[in-house]
């Protein structure tokens, strides 16, 4: 499934554009593609941090990155992140169950 795209005007530091050009040469892609790849990598990392901290949910993360929930788990595992309830949450759920 191809993600929807839309144009967005943006001023970028010269160094970042040079980095994009380097990546474009290395990866044999055009400058715009290289910039999108760099932006996407940063977005993935930020989104996983939000997910780990419980600021967004798994389903929301999958919607934002336009992928399956499995893919989000795979990305988290690749970065050594574990997602899920805390021990306090586990104990509270247990208390409520017995309650």
């Amino acid at each position, binding site marked *: *499934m191809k993600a929807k795209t839309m144009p967005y005007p943006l001023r970028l530091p010269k160094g970042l554009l040079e980095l994009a050009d380097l990546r474009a040469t290395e990866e044999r892609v055009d400058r715009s593609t290289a910039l999108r790849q760099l932006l996407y990598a940063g977005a993935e990392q930020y989104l996983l941090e939000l*997910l*780990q*901290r*419980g*600021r*967004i*949910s*798994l*389903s*929301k*993360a*999958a*919607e934002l990155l336009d*992928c*399956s*929930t*499995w*893919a989000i*788990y795979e990305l988290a*595992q690749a970065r050594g992140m*574990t*997602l*899920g*309830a*805390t*021990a306090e*949450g*586990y*104990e*509270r*759920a*247990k208390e*409520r*169950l017995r309650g």
Partner: protein
Amino acid sequence: MVIDSDGLIKLAKAGVLEKVVKAWDCHITQAVYEETVERGKEEAYPDAEEIERIIQDRGHVRPPSREHPQAKGVLALAGAKSLGRGEQETLHLFFAEEADVIISDDRAFLAVLERAALPYLPPALALVELARRKGIGIEEALEALERMKRLIKAEVYQRAREDLEALKGKVRREGDEG
């Protein structure tokens, strides 16, 4: 009970989803089905097909619903922006089906459930409960917990392991007395 994507993934990876579905009356929403099964199959995740087999065999997928007034109230108070369609529909389905509990391990979703004082089961605790209700043997549950280990927090793995070991001890003592 109602299961969200996070719960489905962890129970499937642990190899116990089928036993959970047999032990309890389980439902999932259309949104959860789409983001986990349909999208997972498109991206060639083999566990997505396994979930499809288990869920479709028993026809537990419910059509889209975002209309339950109690769910709307909870989302309005707790803030729906952090949740995706999957968790929001799960909450609506929980009220619509008058379910007992939601299986989820999603911190953002659990925070909403906590604020609304709604019952939830993290998958590791669901595994302990399944063993307590004899829906799975204790040794088998310990093996499943090992498969779940890399997907859950180490502290939760430890608590669930202690609970299963305690249950094992209790069953042994009852056997000795009987």
